[in-house]
């Protein structure tokens, strides 16, 4: 029955991965724009956010969001979350900070002349962002995003510290109860396969955005 429970763990791991990926990327993008805001205060707050999220351990952030928030006076009682939403929120906020920095670099790489050409051709700011800037940015950031995605696969294992029954959690339980280390290998193979799939996916995307 190794696979039965382990499959359940894989389900959690995959869900956490997917939720984090689809939320942190747009969030990171929004942060990139905030960090380029014309208002100094907005820029400062964004920089501070990125500094804190990148500068503290993800595990500590998990503890904070799951165990810590409910202790905040007055509003704490509204901030009690189940384990899984708490993990998703923490991962999304944490990865958004990294993506913000990656996208910021990508944005800087787009030549000034591209904005000028778009302007002279009469495109609006939104059209320029979505039709000219983002497609060129994607190409530049793709390798770094791939790297983050692979890191995320393995970081999901951290969710077990707030009691989420992810793949690694069940694996450890099985190893302990059966005194057999085979589950470790199975888990390793799963992570490797997952990473392999992602690598292939990003290779294909990189090819698509080659110009």
């Amino acid at each position, binding site marked *: 029955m190794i696979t039965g429970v382990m499959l359940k763990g894989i389900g959690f791991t995959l869900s956490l991965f997917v939720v984090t990926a689809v939320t942190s990327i747009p969030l990171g993008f929004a942060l990139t724009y905030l960090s380029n805001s014309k208002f100094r205060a907005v820029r400062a707050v964004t920089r501070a956010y990125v500094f804190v999220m990148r500068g503290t351990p993800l595990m500590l952030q998990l503890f904070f969001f799951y165990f810590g928030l409910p202790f905040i006076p007055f509003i704490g009682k509204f901030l009690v979350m189940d384990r899984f939403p708490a993990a998703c929120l923490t991962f999304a906020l944490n990865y958004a900070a990294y993506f913000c920095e990656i996208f910021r670099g990508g944005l800087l790489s787009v030549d000034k002349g591209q904005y000028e050409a778009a302007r002279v*051709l009469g495109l609006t700011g939104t059209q320029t962002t979505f039709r000219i800037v983002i497609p060129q940015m994607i190409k530049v950031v793709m390798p770094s995003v791939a790297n983050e995605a692979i890191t995320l696969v393995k970081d999901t294992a951290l969710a077990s510290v707030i009691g989420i029954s992810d793949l690694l959690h069940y694996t450890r339980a099985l190893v302990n109860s059966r005194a057999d280390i085979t589950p470790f290998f199975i888990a390793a193979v799963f992570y490797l396969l997952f990473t392999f799939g992602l690598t292939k996916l990003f290779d294909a995307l990189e090819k698509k955005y080659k*110009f």
Partner: protein
Amino acid sequence: MEMLKLTNIVKSFGTNEVLRGVSLAVERGEIIAVIGPSGSGKSTMLRSCVGLERISDGSIEISGRSLVREGVTVPEREARSVCARTGMVFQHFNLFPHMTVRENLCLAPVLRMVLDKREAAKRADALLDKVGLADKADAMPASLSGGQKQRVAIARALMLSPEILLFDEPTSALDPELTGEVLAVMRGLAAEHMTMVIVTHEMAFARDIADRVLFMDEGIIAQSGTPDEIFQNPASERLRSFLRSFNRIA
């Protein structure tokens, strides 16, 4: 009515005054060549006419509509509409690298709903044929030579049927043997009486094609006149030495 009218425009970057009161009126069908040493304000003047630079003082009118009124630029939406029929060709082409040549041409007219997709594609192919690149419609910009890129950029500017075309050193980034093909396309436009303002270092071309040549120096139009007046009888020592420096190279 003038296609383009600059009245006493001033532009400063910090304490550095790049344009110190430039006035110019361009008539329909007129071809103006702007020459002058680097840093004289030629490009800045041209870029101000399409809102790429914000001038500090003076007025700019395009086809009788104000883009800047005594130092105050009209609101963004209006500026876009005033500049809608003004085309610009850049020194570094500024093609969109992630799109094919045809997509580069069709993007703006389709997004601006000037043309629908089919009309745009048809017009793109016709214009590419005109600049001699009919076979490159599906190519990516990276696969083109500099001269080809610049011809695509000209075709892209023509997609919006501009009433006036501004050229900012269109051949300065090209290998010498590639300038000819770009200049030939521009000559073709001149033959069709396209109104053009061309900032250039190609003296022979300027002399040949322009109705009027402006010599800019230190932020003002130091001398303007017919090509003969400028090149045969340079009035100032500055212009004489500027032209001499070109003859020495050429």
